[in-house]
């Protein structure tokens, strides 16, 4: 192997080698638990740091999209704004309503953050860099996601406030409705990969024909599945345009109205970390995990590609937030049940046909039409039910 290739391989394995070197200092009886701690601590350090950077990126990005500057006072280009936000949220008074259910009110943000972080346990961040190589990794991820809904309910109910309760009911209805297309969109990948293990799914996508990778997003069913997964992921993390349960102009702040200071920061962090975990799962299932986009770029370390793809997806989230208007509750639910559920089921059928047809241009043609034509027909059909026309409002005669 050439010198450059060896160097690239060493750079790729640098975290694994560092962990083994650190484990050498520990007596062998304590090695399993120290190995677990050494795997978990970098995740707990790296992703909140990414959260801080994302808050800055989001405010600057949204600002530029809305033709204003965004934060530019604290440090050059406002880069120290997350630190200022952190200090502010730590020093604010923790106000709990007197009629609130104190135990549940305290536990709700704790459960949300814990559930969000648990989702990272099955994401392969680099080659051989996964915290828990579970046989049913994807199932674990969705099971942990359903814990987040319980935390949302706990927050809304315990606050004993009408805004909180309404926001919590809307949020839970939204999260449950969008969990169905989310799971169905990922079942397509599981069908093709033949395994629920995230490591096996990424390893299947890490091979190349010529320069093109075998990412699942580069197939018709994979592309449709990816789009459906991302839309459902946006709704699962209550991000705009699906943020009616927490929109400031609609319902004050929804289920976290009565939270202040550090607990609010925990909710904020839990939501963003949940967004990162779901993006990470989209990267693992559809975008090839840690594999490079072209075969001549494999010398760049695998963890770099994972974070590059994660940042690209975060940029898309911020872009969509700045562009699309907020969906009303009934529009949101109609989208989930009337459009996304039939599309995911058709996608399943398409993936099945892809699997059984022989490789070649014919299966590309058949599967692309099977995905594109129902999408166009369904969206037009659903649009005709509601009459979109120009409204003219006369305010005075």
């Amino acid at each position: 192997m050439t010198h450059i290739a060896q160097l690239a391989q060493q750079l790729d394995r640098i975290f694994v080698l560092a962990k083994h070197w650190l484990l050498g200092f520990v007596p062998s009886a304590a090695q399993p638990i120290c190995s677990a701690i050494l795997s978990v601590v970098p995740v707990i350090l790296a992703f909140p740091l990414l959260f801080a950077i994302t808050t800055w990126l989001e405010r600057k990005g949204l600002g530029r999209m809305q033709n204003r500057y965004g934060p530019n006072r604290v440090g050059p280009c406002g880069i120290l704004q997350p630190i200022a936000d952190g200090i502010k949220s730590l020093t604010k008074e923790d106000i709990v309503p007197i009629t609130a259910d104190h135990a549940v009110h305290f536990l709700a943000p704790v459960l949300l953050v814990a559930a969000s972080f648990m989702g990272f346990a099955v994401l392969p961040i680099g080659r051989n860099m996964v915290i828990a190589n579970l046989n049913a990794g994807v199932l674990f991820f969705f099971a942990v996601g359903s814990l987040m809904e319980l935390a949302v309910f706990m927050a809304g109910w315990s606050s004993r406030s009408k805004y909180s309760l309404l926001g919590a009911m809307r949020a839970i209805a939204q999260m449950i409705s969008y969990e169905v297309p989310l799971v169905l969109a990922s079942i397509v990948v599981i069908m093709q990969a033949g395994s629920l293990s995230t490591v096996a799914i990424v390893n299947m996508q890490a091979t190349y024909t010529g320069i093109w990778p075998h990412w699942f997003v580069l197939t018709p069913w994979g592309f449709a599945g990816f789009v459906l997964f991302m839309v459902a992921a946006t709704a699962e993390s209550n991000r705009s345009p699906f943020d009616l349960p927490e929109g400031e102009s609609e319902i004050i702040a929804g289920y976290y109205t009565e939270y202040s200071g550090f607990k609010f920061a925990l909710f904020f962090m839990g939501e963003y970390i949940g967004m990162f975990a779901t993006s990470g799962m989209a990267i693992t299932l559809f975008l090839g995990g840690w594999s490079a986009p072209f075969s001549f770029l494999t010398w760049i370390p695998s963890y770099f590609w994972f974070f590059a793809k994660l940042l690209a997806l975060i940029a898309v989230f911020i872009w969509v937030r700045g562009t699309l208007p907020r969906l009303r509750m009934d529009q949101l639910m109609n989208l989930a049940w009337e459009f996304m559920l039939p599309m995911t089921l058709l996608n399943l059928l398409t993936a099945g046909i892809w699997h059984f047809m022989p490789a070649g241009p014919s299966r590309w043609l058949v599967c692309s039409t099977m995905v594109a034509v129902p999408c166009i027909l369904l969206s037009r059909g659903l649009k005709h039910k509601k009459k979109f026309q120009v409204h003219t409002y006369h305010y005075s005669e």
Partner: protein
Amino acid sequence: MILAVLTVAGTAAAMGLRNAVHCVLALTVGFAGVAALYLQLGAQFVGLTQIMVYVGAVAILAVFAIMMTHSPEPVKQPAFSSQWFVGSIVAASVFAVLAWEIRSGAAFTQGLPPQPYVTVQQIGDALMHHFILPLEIMGLLLTAALIGAVVIAMGHEEEMK
């Protein structure tokens, strides 16, 4: 052992607490304990599905039901009923019968078979080959339940109009 204590404590709290929402949350802790027991026994699929279905769906269903029906103030009844002596005798006798049956069952007398390593693929194979009829019947049942729920909700909506 710790998990067993957690599960029993959760379900006991679910029966003993006053606030209905606290009861459901304690029951959720009990569900999570059962899921952890499944995972400890090596049944990954069943354990994770237990979390997804029970904690994620059944608990939410229960809290929605309580939200829609109960008033938020806790009930004024005492936590232990007045017939607690007879109740404890009945509970102790049921426990004794169950424990005697389990002790004289096959697992204790003949020794445990080696633990099978069940993958999700094997579960899928079994569902599709051996248990295909129960699977189809359950699908039919779930479809009927879904249609029934939609019909009830739709009827309610027409009443409201």
